[in-house]
């Protein structure tokens, strides 16, 4: 059993201290740096603990293309394989692959910039 507060609490508290207590005291150039630091903490905070679920979702999507390989192969290798196949023209204009890529992008945006997620075209 680890001591509390946990990593998420520490990050959130540190971020609040940067924004509420440090930023108002800083000259403008340094405020910019402090806000970047707070943003990096927000990304790290959202990312905490989400890796297993995101990887499972990625493998589930890729199963449509790669079958059971998608369950066992290294995800970086699966990504390389998809990249190679796209470049070779194998998935040209495939609505299925477009949807898989968009889902992947949205999972990553949910971590680094959730407000940037746009609804899909009708």
């Amino acid at each position: 059993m680890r001591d509390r507060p946990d990593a998420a609490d520490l990050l959130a508290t540190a971020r609040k201290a940067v924004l509420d207590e440090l930023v108002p005291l800083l000259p403008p150039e340094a405020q910019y740096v402090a806000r970047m630091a707070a943003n990096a903490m927000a990304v790290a905070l959202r990312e905490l603990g989400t890796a297993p679920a995101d990887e499972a979702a990625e493998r589930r999507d890729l199963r449509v293309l790669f079958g059971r390989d998608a369950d066992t192969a290294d995800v970086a290798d699966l990504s390389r394989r998809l990249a190679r196949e796209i470049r070779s023209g194998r998935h040209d204009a495939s609505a299925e692959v477009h949807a898989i890529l968009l889902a992947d992008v949205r999972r990553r945006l949910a971590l680094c910039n959730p407000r940037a997620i746009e609804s899909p075209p009708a």
Partner: protein
Amino acid sequence: MDLIARLPALHDWVRAATGADAVSLTGARRLSGGAIQENWAVDLDSEGGSLDGRHALVLRGDAPSGVAVSRSRAEEFALLEVAFAAGVTVPEPLLLCVDARVVGVPFYLMRRASGTAAAFRMVKDPAVAAKADALAERLGEELARIHAIRPDDPAMRARLAFLGEPPANAALARVAEYRAHLDALPTAHPVLEWGLRWLERHAPPQVPATLCHGDFRTGNYMVDDGQLTALLDWEFASWSDPMEDLGYICAKAWRFGATGKRLGGIAPLDPFKRGYARVAPAGLPWGQLDYWEIMGTVRWGLVAVQQGERHISGGQASLELALTGRMVAEMEQDLLLQIARVDAAAGGS
């Protein structure tokens, strides 16, 4: 570079290079911006010589950890000279020093433009909004003057020999170039590959190459009270398809949140087209703008990944580079949605 410590050496070099009786250099301070270059403001007061009088200057030199991804200072100086002579609004280039012993790195001196290039503030600035159409027209005129510089002019070709051979098809050349950059990265990027494959399949026909600025976007030009004062950052100039520059400034990521204003978050496209056509009546194939916006989005996505890599493994640990690396998903979403819209409008792909 510690310019303050190098001021005596700079002083002696400027006096010798201009043939002045006496010079004084004051007010040296580092300017913000430029991850690869350092820019310093410095004021010159000169008695006699080629720069007699008082001048507000910028000294631009390589940052010591400069990465070999962009043009050298000497090449950038030549580009500025060519653009200045063609009537493009650039800071007048004055003196080039390739001897790294003077201030520690090669550098040049140019006139200091007034105003700011800060993009997020510019797209919200009421003074810019009030003169947005005029600013967009002016940017159109400027870009047309840049694009009038062509590699089929032998003098220009020789002067800018460092730009290499003009590509047969600039779009396909970029696709090949960006794929080579992707191949040099440690991880795969299937969405950028999707964009590049689409760009390969939909490449426009070959056109005569022109000089292209290569980084033509809001954030890389200076504005003072709504008026253009300087086009900056020439380090990515090349012989290319002139639509490439327009696609870059119009790409959604370079509208800085002012998405409805297609020309760099500043203005709609029409005033820009008017300005361009005033200098180059044939205009540009505006119907290709979606294509070149997608090209610009792929490029910026690739650059974001590369900047993240410079933080991770390139020996340049930096919070800004690290966060830029995480921005790639925004450009990837833009390109996926824009390709889907273009394909739907074309009735398939």
